[in-house]
């Protein structure tokens, strides 16, 4: 699905990703954990194509194509989806309208005609129910006046509509109460299948009680310093990140 090799990237002169490596196969769920400032969100943004970051070294192959050469929209059209850590409010742009256009452009890229209006509405209705997003929210301006939980739910709703091949969830659990967390996790679990992959970025183990990962990676100072099965997350929860930091420094 995606192969990230020796990725180095940062903002201006500041290098944040310092030789990051990861391979995700179809159907796998990888959790990336790590302390604040370890580069988790940078990774998500670099993969989605945010211009503020400069890639200085390395390669990312996504479905056999060079991801870093693509515009952000082409990455989305190839099947990459980023659920933003801080979904922004876009007053005046209707959630539904923009999703409809996005879906049409994605389908057009793949040589498919746009969905018929009634099929699109049926799709919206189905996915809305899946993430328990109230009807009114889908018809409002993108994220405008949404609570923190509603914004995150809206991200999962968009993901459900666009049906990406690889979804990156950037701290989707932050700011969620337990009920919202369960709804979001349920949405993700319903979308899990043998073809679709996820990279779940989180600071806490809590989300991984609901979205069970195949692999857990610990990120520190722009690299993966430890990888393991899902139990690693529990270990991190118990011991915190300090032992990873010490371990990493002793290696150096």
């Amino acid at each position, binding site marked *: 699905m995606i192969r990230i090799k020796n990725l180095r990237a940062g903002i201006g002169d500041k290098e944040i990703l310092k030789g990051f490596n990861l391979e995700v196969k179809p159907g796998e769920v990888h959790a990336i954990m790590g302390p604040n400032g370890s580069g988790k969100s940078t990774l998500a943004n670099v993969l989605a194509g945010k211009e503020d970051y400069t890639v200085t070294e390395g390669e990312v192959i996504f479905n056999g194509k060079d991801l870093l050469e693509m515009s952000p929209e082409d990455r989305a059209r190839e099947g990459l989806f980023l659920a933003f850590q801080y979904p922004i409010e876009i007053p005046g742009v209707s959630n539904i309208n*923009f999703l409809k256009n996005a879906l049409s452009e994605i389908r057009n890229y793949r040589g498919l005609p746009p969905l018929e209006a009634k099929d699109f509405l049926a799709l919206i209705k189905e996915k809305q129910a899946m993430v328990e997003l109230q009807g009114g929210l889908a018809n409002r301006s993108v994220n405008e006046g949404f609570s923190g939980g509603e914004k995150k739910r809206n991200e999962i709703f968009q993901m459900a509509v666009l049906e990406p091949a690889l979804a990156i969830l950037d701290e989707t659990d932050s700011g969620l109460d337990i009920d919202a967390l369960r709804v979001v996790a349920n949405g993700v679990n319903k979308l899990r299948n043998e073809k679709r992959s996820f990279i779940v970025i989180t600071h806490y183990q809590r989300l991984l009680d609901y979205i069970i990962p195949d692999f857990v990676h610990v990120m520190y100072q722009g690299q993966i310093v430890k990888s393991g099965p899902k139990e690693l997350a529990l270990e991190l929860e118990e011991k915190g990140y300090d032992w990873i930091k010490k371990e990493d420094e002793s290696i150096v």
Partner: protein
Amino acid sequence: MSTTLPLLSQQQALSDAFKSVSSLLDERISLKTLRKKAWDNFTILGFPNKSNEEYKYSGTEKLIEKIECWNPEALTTVDFDFDKVRKINPNAYHLFLINGKLMPVVSDIELLEKECSFCSLSQAAKDYPEMFEKHLGQSSIHFQDAFAQINLALAHEGLFIHMKPKQKLHKTIQINQIFTTETPSFIQTHHIIIAEALSEANIIETYWSADNTIFYFGNHLTEIAVSEQAQLNYYRLQHENTSAVHVSTIQATQQKDSHFDTNTISIGGFWTRNNLNIILEGKNAVSHLNGLQIMSHQQHIDNHTLVDHEVPHCESNQLYKGIFNQKSSGVFNGKIFVRKDAQKTNAYQSSKNMLLSENATINTKPQLEIYADDVKCSHGSSTGKIDESALFYLQARGLSTDSARAMLMCAFANDVIQTIRIEPFKGYLESLIEDYFNL
């Protein structure tokens, strides 16, 4: 202030036009006096240049110099797609004007005549002399602007619309002004709109050029009287070609408990100046002034608004938005006067602009003069670029840069469009803006 030689000769040409118009028009002596007075005012003021504070960013000399004909002959036909304009609002009384002159054959005159008194301006001078004289030029006492004075002195084409007390128009009146000329001409139109007590009406005015490239200088004046408890919505769309010059002045007075909504949408024109002056003369009057400008290439637009709160308990609310691309430029100057007696005034003003290019400019200037002490007044202005993080958000969902930008532009324009209360016209504007940005 020095007047250049070409301008002096233009002033002479205008003077000749004034003399010939005065001798031709068969008007009552009081009207002739009023026109002469306006002319005298103009000769004192002269054509405004940049040393005039009100025209600081919008000098007119170079545009005036291009005019070759100051009093063009009236036309009766024009090659124009009338249906295209009718489709904007199929269920309206459409009045088509060519260079200000009503075109009876293509207009819905008989239908409208059943609902209210209306006629050409020159006809009104004969048919409704008292009312005509009462309203002509009366509101301009407060406002000394060279173009309004030239208009009062010379203009004799345009419409007179009178809504009787308690009259509620069933349909919108849509005035469609078409301009055409072979030589670079100065074209003037003048409307008088009177909404008597408790009357209600929607009026749309649209401006078009018959030819896509020809230069002309339009100078328009609309005098509006909104009486007690009357409600008038007056929306304008300026969609002329990008060689045209458009100066328009709206002078409105409002009486007790009246509502007056205006919306000024400007997309066309090479150089546009909109003066909107509203005088709140009666308590509890409410006024909404909204505007949207979308400019590109070398287009220039200057919106001057003036709201004069003379009495207590009135409300005025302004929202002007502009999108400026390439080398286009804009000005927003919003004056609010709150007189000493105008306690409990609510007056709000907001100007928001988006610059899409390094070479686009906007100058905004709020001017609040408040002499009462128990009022709520606020003003705000902001100028920004496109929100990069919003753009990225949309792109990350698969939208191309162009369609993401277009979507954000439409969203920016949207809150002005949403203030329009005539559904088909609102829908037309929404799709016009989407088309403009190729969405």
